[in-house]
């Protein structure tokens, strides 16, 4: 049986950083899946995504979250990033599962479905849109403030083939 779920790259942090860039993404897959395990994030803030270095106001997001006491949703549009998490989440020791659909086509804009959170603070399900029609060749995952992903945090990008 052909392999249809393949690791593209893994980044394991040897030092604490506030952004992780996954570049040189081949266009040979149908979809992408990013899995991360974040350890010892230094403080509470948002997690943001950009594609291909585009930081113009070409992104929108919808977030549904809960903190164990209350649930809520939030909408951002025409902003310079996809926001994965916001006030609901403090990723002190958490994880995320992001699915990027049809990322390599050069006709349509790109969407992403995201699950993220940690047991100490909150959990979110969110969606994002990038208005770019280029194939996604790089993903930048960063914080919205000054916090860092700690040593030992692991980010793995998988490629998924439809055939």
């Amino acid at each position, binding site marked *: 049986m052909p392999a249809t779920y393949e690791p593209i790259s893994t980044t394991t942090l040897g030092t604490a950083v506030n952004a992780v860039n996954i570049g040189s993404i081949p266009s040979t897959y149908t979809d992408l899946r990013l899995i991360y395990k974040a350890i010892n994030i230094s403080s509470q803030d948002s997690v943001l995504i950009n594609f291909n270095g585009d930081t113009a106001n070409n992104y929108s997001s919808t977030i549904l*979250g809960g903190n164990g006491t209350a649930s809520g949703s939030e909408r951002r549009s025409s902003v310079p990033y996809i926001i994965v998490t916001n006030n609901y989440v403090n990723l002190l020791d958490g994880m995320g*599962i992001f699915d990027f659909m049809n990322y390599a086509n050069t006709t349509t804009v790109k969407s992403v479905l995201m699950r993220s959170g940690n047991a100490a603070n909150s959990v979110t399900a969110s969606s994002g849109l990038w208005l770019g029609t280029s194939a996604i060749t790089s993903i930048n995952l960063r914080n919205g403030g000054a916090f860092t992903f700690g040593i030992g945090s692991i980010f793995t990008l998988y490629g998924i083939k439809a055939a």
Partner: protein
Amino acid sequence: MANTYVAIQTVTVGSGGSSTIGFTSIPATYTDLHLLLSLRTTGVGSSVGSIGQITFNSTTSGYSLKDVYGQSGGEGSGAFTFATTYIPTGRDDNATQTASTFSNCSVYITNYANTNNKSVFLDAVNESNSATAHSMAFMSALWSNSATINAITITSGDGNYVQYSSATLYGIKNS
């Protein structure tokens, strides 16, 4: 390139039913684990469904979580945060609900073989042909334990798991 998403084992409950479904001797050779559950119990304690219990390495301590849920026309957060001795499966379909309905739960476990605490994400749903007897939830859970996960047990919270309830464990390699 080698296949990196591998079915480790499927367990299907037989005609006699069972109060637990388990995996033992899980190899430490993968990066992540993905557990998919299809469950129905003989319980009658709740019209919304029974809460199954996931534990690692037969340990009943160190669990915590946050959730968002929708059930019976309402929604919120905190429906499962009482659970500290296990990770809930959400709600399993039970004997009070439409016949032959089985709940579904996806359990993704990151870096299960390293010495960090184990982060887990769950998507769970139990449907029935009812206006009120249904639920869905997603949860971010943590097992605060440095041990490699080598066993997973799913225990029914009410009655036994019925025939054809099943669990499949996948291993995922990042290289």
